[in-house]
């Protein structure tokens, strides 16, 4: 004989299939819970994966902290770098120059194209400590000596550039010189500086790949008339999540004439949008579970009516209202647990085989569900976060438990004699 508590044993016995309409509806509601949980797991895992990749790409270009002097360039940046490096949270520091220039292609045939990209001046020996920029060169090399530069993949496509092509750069300084000399009556035209495309980088993030070129720090200092100054320092931390703490510490140790921006602050719009989107998905998809829970609720109501005389018999044997309630409440909990477990199985399987499924769909339908051109990734990212899984599992179970509450309460409140007389 079963050693389980009597209420639980009875609930389990009630779940044995009896080929009645009620058990078919029970099965349908369990499948509903399963689908709800599986869809939640897949969608939330893909969104987390996308979020994670995006964060990776952001910090791959801009590191974790940016240190600047308000309105003026940073002088004696090497001394400042040493002071920043002294902080134990800091993994690496590198100087940068960042501004806009105008570029003009010089094709052998056809007319030149113009664009105004951002230019970033980097010091390669430090840059590799703080960003993946120089490691993301897909064509050519990352050699920036002399008048060489790197362009983003999308920008190269837009301007029709290839490794080895020349590119003319006009800096703001040159336009200013032209303007002042014109006022003095001279008609000296701005002279472009001729660079050669040495490599094409691909960070996988459209905003960077379509709008930036990279030159050596010295060339960039020259373009912006900085002499030996820089626009600021980029800092990589051992733990990106410690950015606010590291910022506070550095602000204290460096003094008041520095401005520090964390990667979270800089990208708050997109990061917050992602969080809002994920939360919305959570709420929306929980409705699938909610609908399934209504199914459980209605089958339990039908079941309680079916079992009314037995409830009366149990009351005559001395079962309390609470004990009767527990029989039906544990039934809804068991149904919920079955649905959640099956949903976890299906969801985790779907996450594991998501790309095979995508490729299969592409082969069968010829239609791309996630075009790489738009989403910037050829494979669907996914990240299973324990806290998400706990919320999905716990939330679904709670919904199922709540669904059972009404029928169970009704069963517990049945008056013994009326239940016994039920036809």
């Amino acid at each position, binding site marked *: 004989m079963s050693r389980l508590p009597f209420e639980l044993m*009875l609930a389990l016995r009630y779940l044995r299939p009896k080929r009645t309409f009620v058990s078919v509806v029970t099965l349908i509601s369990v499948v509903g819970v399963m689908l709800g949980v599986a869809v939640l797991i897949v969608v939330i895992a893909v969104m987390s994966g996308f979020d994670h990749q995006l964060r990776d790409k952001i910090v791959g270009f801009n590191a974790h902290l940016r240190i600047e002097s308000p309105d003026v360039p940073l002088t004696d940046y090497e001394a400042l770098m040493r002071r920043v490096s002294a902080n134990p949270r800091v993994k690496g520091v590198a100087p940068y120059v960042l501004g806009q220039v105008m570029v003009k292609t010089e094709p052998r045939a056809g007319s030149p194209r113009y664009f105004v990209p951002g230019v970033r001046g980097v010091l390669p020996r430090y840059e590799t400590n703080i960003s993946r920029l120089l490691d993301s060169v897909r064509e050519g090399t990352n050699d920036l000596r002399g008048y060489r530069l790197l362009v983003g993949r999308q920008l190269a496509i837009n301007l029709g550039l290839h490794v080895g092509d020349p590119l003319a750069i006009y800096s703001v300084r040159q336009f200013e010189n032209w303007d002042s000399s014109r006022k003095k009556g001279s008609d000296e035209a701005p002279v472009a500086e001729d660079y050669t495309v040495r490599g094409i980088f691909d960070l996988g993030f459209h905003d960077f790949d379509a709008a930036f070129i990279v030159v050596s720090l010295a060339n960039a200092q020259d373009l912006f008339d900085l002499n030996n100054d820089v626009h600021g320092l980029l800092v990589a931390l051992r733990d990106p999540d410690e950015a606010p703490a590291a910022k506070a510490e550095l602000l204290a140790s460096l003094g008041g004439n520095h401005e520090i921006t964390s990667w979270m602050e800089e990208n708050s719009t997109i990061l917050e949008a992602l969080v809002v989107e994920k939360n919305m998905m959570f709420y929306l998809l929980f409705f699938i579970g909610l609908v399934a829970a209504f199914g459980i609720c209605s089958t339990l109501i039908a079941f309680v009516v079916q079992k009314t005389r*037995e409830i*009366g*018999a149990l009351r005559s044997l001395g*079962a309390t*209202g609470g004990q009767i309630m527990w029989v039906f409440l544990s039934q809804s909990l068991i149904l919920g647990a079955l649905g959640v477990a099956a949903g976890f199985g299906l969801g985790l399987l779907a996450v594991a085989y998501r790309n095979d499924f995508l490729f299969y769909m592409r082969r069968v339908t010829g239609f791309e569900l996630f075009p790489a051109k738009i989403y910037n990734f050829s494979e669907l990212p996914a990240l299973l976060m324990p806290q998400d899984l706990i919320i999905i599992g716990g939330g679904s179970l709670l919904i199922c438990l709540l669904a059972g509450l009404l029928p169970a309460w009704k069963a517990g409140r049945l008056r013994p004699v009326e239940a016994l007389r039920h036809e």
Partner: protein
Amino acid sequence: MNDAATPVGVPFLLARNLDKTYDLGHRAVPVLRGVELTLARGSFTALRGASGAGKSTLLHLLGGLDVPTAGEIWLDGQNLACLPGRRLAEFRNRRIGFVFQAYYLLPELDALENVCAPARLARVPAAEAERRGRALLARVGLGSRVDHRPSELSGGEQQRVAIARALMNEPELILADEPTGNLDSHTGQEIIDLLCTLQAERRTGLLIATHDSQVAARAPRVLDLVDGRITPGP
């Protein structure tokens, strides 16, 4: 629960001026009108009455399954009206055993589990309940059918299981409502024999409600329920 023995002169069960009226919305149907009843501890009494006379209603009131419209029921010095729902359930579980005409076994449980149900509801450990259940099933002649579901048992066998179930928590009073009503006369006879034997053996109080004079005749004391009132039998 008042476990003290009934003081001398006070009956084990006392029903005073019991009224029960069913409210059917548009009219009130009086079923019991001023029932007076006493039962001595361990006594065997038959309650005879025509179908619809209110026998079941009276048994339900005495067993705490329903509440009277007026009047009082005292069991072992305890007024049932004063027991809150939970204590009343405990009272039914420990002190009363019900045997119904339609057996009311739980179809999902086997014979042993059905018999053990009152003990399991009282949180008796499963092993102890099983030991008692097997002994009771053997006593009612079903030692070899412990793992059979009600659907695999005959009517007589089901009623034996129900009797064993009623005895599970060693109650002081068994209320049997037409226990032979669904059985042929031979099997009915066997069931009554069994109830009589067990009553004598265990000194458990037994109140059988029946419309059958032959069944009633087995009891040393017969009460007639006529027009909602009790009259001593002939």
